[in-house]
């Protein structure tokens, strides 16, 4: 009994001691520079597919981890949005490549993410490397929280090149030529456009891309920015004009394979398939740079298919989407990783990853970094747009989520199903859904 009496407090003490002691058992490496100690590990949270993550990890291993005093890892999270929020709020986030910059403001307000200024980055330098409009997307209350690390081109119209050339069609340079081409295809007894908007819970997003692409060309980048920031209402005449242009493609008889109303039931990945029938059942498909991974496996880029930029309407424009990398923890190895990650060498290497179709927002990365001509051509257009400031980011990813991944998606589906007469009601409804305050 006496023995026990000694043992119990000892046991309790031992538990407490180990509990407290374990904190300083790790790390303790070479600090210097940033706020915290080097923990030897940097995790980049990302929404990419696991196969793509493997390829990127290999680049990290070769170009960053080799010789560094830390290990950088990319983590492909299937439920990225939730994981990102949870980790940022819980303080366990190192870095995250965020495809929807709209999420940044709240986290910056709450002090959950670190400003690039506080990490020692020079914003002027970043502006010249990534273009001011892209860098500005990460800005909140005068500080910048996101660094562009990936970009993809949305303003692309794909066509079946071999059949297209054989039929004697020419790549249109203006919107009128595009409409004339569509009429020509109808006159030849075929259907010009393949359109599909179904994407499970996110059904409708390809339609919002269409709208944004047209809005950028009819209203111009300044009005586009106001639209995104809700400085003009969603039912503004400028928005209506763009939607009516969109309707010109959707609702003109025989323009869309299966008819406009059916597009809501066609999976966006299935949509381009009829283009590869012989003879093609449709000839034009507007979709972002990743869509060729949904094309038939034996279809060859530059032979069976190619693309042209969506032509200008009242002016030219370039719609893109991409990722801003945000930082959740100010540690020297995190900063070191980010500098290398955004740098020319790593970005160039990532352009060579065939299955990801990644394009670098770093304007110093030249077209010869890319795996194929499709990506290289797209990169040229994007680089030009970033340098000249004519490019704009996908609006729905910038709007508040109630709209950008809610009423805008569903509203577009109501529009394609309801036809031109539904437009006013749809725009009013989206406007009403915009969060107050």
């Amino acid at each position: 009994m006496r023995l026990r009496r000694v043992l119990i407090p000892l046991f309790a003490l031992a538990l407490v001691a180990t509990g407290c002691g374990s904190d300083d058992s790790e790390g303790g490496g070479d600090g210097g520079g940033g706020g915290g100690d080097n923990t030897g590990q940097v995790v980049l949270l990302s929404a990419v597919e696991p196969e793509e993550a493997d390829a990127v990890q290999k680049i990290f291993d070769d170009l960053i981890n080799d010789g560094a005093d830390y290990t950088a890892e990319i983590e492909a999270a299937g439920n990225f949005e939730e994981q990102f929020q949870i980790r940022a709020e819980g303080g366990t986030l190192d870095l995250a490549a965020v495809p929807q910059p709209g999420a940044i403001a709240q986290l910056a307000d709450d002090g959950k993410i670190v400003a690039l200024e506080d990490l020692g980055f020079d914003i002027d330098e970043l502006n010249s490397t990534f273009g001011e409009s892209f860098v500005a997307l990460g800005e909140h209350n005068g500080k910048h929280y996101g660094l562009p690390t990936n970009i993809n081109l949305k303003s692309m119209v794909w066509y079946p090149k071999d059949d297209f050339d054989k039929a004697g069609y020419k790549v249109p340079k203006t919107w009128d030529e595009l409409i004339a081409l569509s009429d020509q295809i109808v006159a030849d007894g075929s259907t010009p456009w393949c359109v599909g908007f179904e994407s499970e819970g996110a059904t409708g997003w390809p339609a919002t891309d269409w709208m944004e692409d047209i809005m950028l060309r009819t209203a111009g980048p300044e009005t586009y920015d106001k639209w995104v920031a809700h400085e003009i209402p969603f039912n503004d005449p400028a928005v209506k004009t763009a939607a009516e242009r969109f309707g010109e493609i959707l609702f003109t008889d025989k323009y869309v394979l299966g008819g406009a109303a059916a597009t809501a039931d066609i999976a966006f990945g299935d949509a381009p398939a009829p283009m590869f029938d012989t003879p093609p059942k449709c000839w034009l498909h507007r979709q972002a740079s990743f869509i060729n991974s949904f094309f038939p496996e034996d279809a060859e880029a530059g032979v069976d298919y190619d693309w042209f930029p969506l032509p200008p309407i009242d002016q030219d424009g370039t719609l893109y989407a991409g990722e801003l990398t945000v930082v959740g923890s100010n540690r020297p190895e995190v900063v070191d990783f980010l500098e290398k990650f955004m740098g020319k060498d790593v970005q160039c290497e990532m352009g060579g990853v065939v299955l990801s179709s990644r394009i670098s927002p770093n304007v110093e990365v030249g077209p010869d970094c890319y795996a194929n001509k499709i990506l290289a051509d797209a990169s040229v257009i994007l680089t030009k747009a970033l340098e000249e400031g004519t490019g704009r980011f996908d609006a729905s990813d910038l709007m508040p989520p109630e709209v950008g991944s809610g009423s805008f998606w569903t509203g577009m589906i109501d529009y394609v199903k309801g036809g031109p007469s539904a437009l006013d009601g749809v725009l009013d409804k989206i406007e009403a859904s915009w969060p107050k305050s």
Partner: protein
Amino acid sequence: MSDGPETQAVPTTDPAPAGAARWARLLGAVAVVVGLPLLARWAYTFMKDGDANRFAVVGVAILLGVLGVFALFWLMDEIVDRLPHGWREGARPYVFVGPALVILSVFLIYPVVNTVILSFKDRSGDSWVGLDNYRFVFTDESMLRSLRNTGLWIVVVPAVALTIGLLFATLADRLQRGESLAKSLIFLPMAISFVGAAVTFRLIYSYRPAGFGTNIGVLNAIWQGLGNEPVPWLTEKPWNNLMLMVIMVWMQTGFAMVVLSSAIKAIPEEITEAARIDGATEWQVFRHITIPSILPTIVVVTTYMVINALKVFDIVFVMGSPENNGTEVVAERMLTWFFLRNNDGYGAAVAVVLFLAVIPVMVWNVRRFRAEEAIR
């Protein structure tokens, strides 16, 4: 204690086992006291190691959990032993219930209270907004549809699954052979996760309009075989709601059947035989003997299904855009607003409504259970 060494020298004599046991106990105690904290410390570093084998980490976590709980109870018991006599037996039950209560408050009571508080605040939980969030829950077009749909789910799914389950349980009871095989087949879908089932049914309901390849969905194949045009089952209002409910019925019928079947088998054969001898028809036996005998089981199964239907989210979420298809349900709205649209206020208000909706079902169930106990 001083007699330890001597007795150990003569291990075969009678007092020896007592001495050896004592030593073993002492060694054991020392091992626990020194070993466990060391083990805990080692396990802590091991589990933090990103390169460690996943299974090994899980194994260590389980081991540590089990030993940790054991050590905790042992420690608490020892502390109680040290209390003054009068307090000891009074304190002991609380010591054993204590950890469970702590865990319950941390993981259940605290979140409930916090959710209720959040439901009166704005989207980021900063300022109070009064009843605005609840006004949204009961006026928003999409929310109202979700309330209506959830109402349908909790009526249709349990009713259909119970009816079919009862039918199968009764009929399978009469099978000469193959009863277990038949029941296994119906029970099988229970083993599939909701998301898995939903993905499977996406293929069954798959639809492609003319020109976009052949239809690969089984349902459209049958439908076309009957000479009809293919139908987009998942967007055809209002039937798409029923199409989604079919999935849950498919998954839960097996559960109802197995539970009801065992209840039916527990009915004493003398009663049914007596009824038959008295000239009761099969229907009368079923209506007046089988049903009343298994009523308690039916109640339990119904409760389980109603609660499951209230929680349904995965099926609706995987099967397309709920807002376009008019297939919103309350739990789906909660997740959409909380996680996808980052509106903590709306999400919390929906959660509170859902929470309140479950309470009557639970109360009814507990009352029912108590009444049963009273009869016995």
